[in-house]
Structure formats: C-alpha cells, structure tokens
C-alpha cells in the first residue's frame, strides 16, 4: 500500500505492508508531493514486537499486538525519528486547545493526564477540543511552537487534525491536595527531556534538545487529585497570567 499523508504540516509518503496503516492514518491523507518516504519491512515489525516484549513481557508482548498494529507503531517511530529535521518533535502528553491556545499535560504513564484533560472538556464543553491524547507533535513554524494532532493518540484515539500555538506545558503528579505553581523552564527540563521522543540518531537527539531549549512558553507543576476542582484550579491559573503559588 502506498499513500501520501500530511502529519504536523509535513507531507510523507508511506509504503506499508498492511492496509491497517492506511485506515489508521486516513484522516491525514494528502494530495501533494511528499517531503520524505517511510517504508516498512518485516524487520521493522520484528523490532516493534521485541520492544513490546521488553515492555510487557514475552508472552503478552507477542500476544497483544498483531503484525498490523505493530506496523502502525513502526510507522510512528520512523515518523518521529524524522521530525527534528523539520523543527519538530513528538511529545508524550495529552494536548488540549482552549480559546485557540494549546495546553499540554504530561506525566508518567498512569498518573492521569488523559483524566485531567477529560475534566477540562467536561468543564469547558465546546470551548475545549482535544488535539491529541498521547503523542502530539510540537513543531516550530516561524518561531512559534505549534501543537499538532497526529493519528497516534492513545487508547481512545482522541485526536484531531488541527494545530494550535502552545501556551503552556504542565507536569502532573498525584496528590490528595490540589496545588499548582508556575515553574521555570530549568525546573521543567528533566521532565521535558524525559517526555520528548528520543531519536535513535545522535543528530536527531541534539536537534530535539535544541528545540526544547527554544521553547518559550509557560511551565507548571500540578499536584492533584482526579476531581473536578483540580481541573478548575489548573484552568484558572494556566489560562491567566499568574506568578505566585496557588492552592485550592
């Protein structure tokens, strides 16, 4: 199967073995000249299967993913590898847009980024729209970091083919008491490096680090429970200009 798609403003021609890739990326089909090509082979599927086994254990890793699903992941990885060449990088987080600005919540897996953006959607209704619930791309376009939806969007495939300028990144940790504070980029850096896609190539890695260094947005640290008042607090603070610690 060979088709052209446009992810994060970059046209890509994908030649895949299975049609599942096309179905997965259908919304991103594009009529135009690709900037680069992605090919997949059996070795790519074997590679992804091995990685799944490393993460989930031998039996589960083999059982839970079909070759079609592994190919979708292989395509994602090849795309993510190339992004730094186009001034972008994939970032592990839940990205939501409100009033035309993007907010990304990031945390270790299972902490509650998706839950938090779901609370924002419940609270804000149509004022909010999901950009991508798992792997948005941050890409600099005329020096502005834009957050893009991609077809790789987590368990519920929550994503939209839109792009909004990044306003803030928020690191979430669980706590009983809700608290948020704005932090310096310096404080956020270890998390940013941890949550950005890490290229296999050194050049790609160094470019990613350079792009992270360029980020001139707000950074927050949020300690919260998974209740509505946590979302009310985070939205109130992140959507306004505040400099002090705030507690709920």
């Amino acid at each position, binding site marked *: 199967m060979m088709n052209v798609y446009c992810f994060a403003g970059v046209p890509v021609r994908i030649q895949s073995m299975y049609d599942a890739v096309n179905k997965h990326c259908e919304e991103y089909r594009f009529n135009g000249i690709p900037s680069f090509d992605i090919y997949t082979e059996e070795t790519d599927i074997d590679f992804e299967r091995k990685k799944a086994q490393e993460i989930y254990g031998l039996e589960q890793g083999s059982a839970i993913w079909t070759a079609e699903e592994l190919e979708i992941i292989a395509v994602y990885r090849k795309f993510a590898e190339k992004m730094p060449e186009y001034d972008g990088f994939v970032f592990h987080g839940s990205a939501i847009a409100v009033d035309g600005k993007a907010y990304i919540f990031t945390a270790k897996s299972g902490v509650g980024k998706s839950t938090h953006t779901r609370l924002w959607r419940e609270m804000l209704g149509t004022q909010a729209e999901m950009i991508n619930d798992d792997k948005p791309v941050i890409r600099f376009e005329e020096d502005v970091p834009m957050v893009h939806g991609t077809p790789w969007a987590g368990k519920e495939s929550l994503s939209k083919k839109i792009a909004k300028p990044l306003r803030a990144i928020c690191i979430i940790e669980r706590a009983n008491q809700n608290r948020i504070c704005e932090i310096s980029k*310096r404080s956020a850096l*270890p998390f940013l*490096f*941890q949550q950005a*896609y*890490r290229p296999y190539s*050194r050049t790609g890695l160094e470019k990613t*680090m350079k792009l992270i*260094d360029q980020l001139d947005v707000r950074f927050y640290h949020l300690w919260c429970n998974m209740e509505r008042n946590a979302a009310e607090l985070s939205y109130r603070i992140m959507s306004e200009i505040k400099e002090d610690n705030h507690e709920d």
Partner: protein
Amino acid sequence: MKIKEDFSVFQMENEYYLIPTGGMSFKGVIKGNRTMGYILDALKEDTTQEKIVAKLKELFDVSGHEEDVEQDVKQAIEKLRMVGALEED
C-alpha cells in the same frame, strides 16, 4: 574510558544533562552540576579517573578537599558506568 557517542550533553546555566539516544537501554536523564560538567567534558576524549581528578585539582582550589574531589569523581564515573554511558577498554 570516554563517553559513548550515543550520549549527548546539554547545558543550561550551571546544570548539565546527559541524555542517551533512543537505542540505549538507559531511558532516563542524568543531571549534574558544574563538577559533572567538567567530568563530562574531560570524558569527550579517552582519559582515566586519575587524570580527571588531577585536572579538577588544577582547575579549582581544592586545598583541604582533595579526598572530596576524588570521591566526587569516583561517584560520578560509577553513575555513568551504571547507566552504560562509558566506553571502556
């Protein structure tokens, strides 16, 4: 010994970050201060623990703290070794 090509250093003010490429088994980030910065810089070329200690003693006034310097270097190198960042014969 020296730092592997698969590890890259990022500096912001007086903080240094050592980050591996995606293919490394270490998936974290090592963060260090100015001392770590000098150690990482020294490890760009093939060197030894003793040479690094000697260099730090030369660069800073460490009178009365020689053992601390040796200990700091030893611990830093051990950390780098543990995460697979060192290329050693």
